[in-house]
């Protein structure tokens, strides 16, 4: 009796699986069609499109931008506003993560090898990050890459067992997180207040203002990425962390 019902259930399950497979196949065929259409359109767009697009213009205006790396020029000058909002996106994500509660405890005790690695990898990453930031003005690199490297240092520290990922206490950390948007916004609004227009750098100051913004952005990006990896609001005190840890450990 139970055997037959089991078998019936298995059969039903198999049928459901089959249906799901059929459905996903059907979807696959439809999407393949979509892909073909997209390819055709993309070809048409490339073929009939406005070939140089913004390339020539962006490169031609490069000397006025205050930096030598065209991508940095676009990021922090031509389309600086995008970058500002993007930093806000990062901030929103971290604040969103924080709003969901305190961070889970660091779940790994550091092995000797890892701890040894931290002692030389982290300084290396910090130096590399600084280099990346500086070099971004005229060669590949810039705030994002630098911030990512610095953030990666934080991730490694966290992996090595420090639950804070090397980040300071909450109050300071908050300032680090907002630093990018804050400096960007203040520079932009300051320029507006002095008549240059929002985010319109005077050519003479452009290089330094961009460096200032990029430095702040680097710190903010690094802090945000590390904080995102921590995965929650920093715990208020050491004692609280210990409590949490003792609760969850067997």
């Amino acid at each position: 009796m139970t055997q037959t019902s089991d078998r019936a259930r298995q059969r039903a399950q198999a049928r459901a699986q089959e249906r799901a497979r059929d459905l996903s196949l059907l979807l696959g065929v439809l999407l393949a069609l979509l892909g073909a259409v997209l390819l055709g359109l993309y070809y048409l767009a490339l073929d009939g499109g406005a070939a140089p697009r913004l390339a020539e213009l962006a490169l031609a205006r490069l000397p006025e931008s205050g930096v030598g790396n065209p991508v940095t020029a676009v990021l922090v000058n031509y389309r600086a506003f995008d970058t500002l909002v993007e930093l806000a996106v990062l901030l929103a994500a971290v604040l969103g993560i924080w709003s969901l509660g305190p961070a889970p405890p660091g779940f790994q005790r550091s092995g000797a090898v890892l701890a040894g690695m931290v002692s030389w990898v982290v300084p290396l990453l910090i130096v590399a990050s600084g280099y990346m930031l500086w070099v971004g003005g005229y060669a590949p690199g810039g705030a994002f890459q630098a911030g990512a490297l610095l953030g990666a240092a934080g991730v490694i520290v966290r992996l090595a067992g420090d639950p804070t990922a090397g980040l300071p206490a909450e109050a300071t950390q908050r300032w680090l997180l907002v630093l990018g948007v804050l400096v960007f916004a203040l520079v932009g609004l300051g320029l507006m207040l002095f008549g240059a227009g929002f985010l319109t750098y005077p050519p003479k100051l452009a290089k330094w203002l961009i460096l200032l913004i990029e430095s702040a952005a680097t710190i903010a990006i690094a802090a945000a990425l590390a904080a995102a990896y921590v995965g929650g609001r920093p715990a208020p005190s050491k004692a609280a962390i210990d409590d949490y840890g003792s609760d969850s450990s067997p």
Partner: protein
Amino acid sequence: MSQPALLLAFDAVLLATLLALALAAVLSPEPRRAVMLFIAFGLWLSLVWARLHAPDVALAEAAIGAGLGGALMLAAARRAARAARSNDDEAAG
């Protein structure tokens, strides 16, 4: 073989690998494996972008997309695996 043709073949291999990695990442049902494949995909993607003269983006993708994104996903995958294990334990005990 002429140089453009060689380059084209090189491009084709690059892209085929990229698509294969993506397909593997998408099809892998095991979380940790999927994330590993995704990281590989991201790194390969940055390689392709370097080939397309986009070193800035390639760096960023390697560091942020594949690196940090991958690390985040890996942690999540580990958590998921642990949760699944503890659920199994509960079920067993």
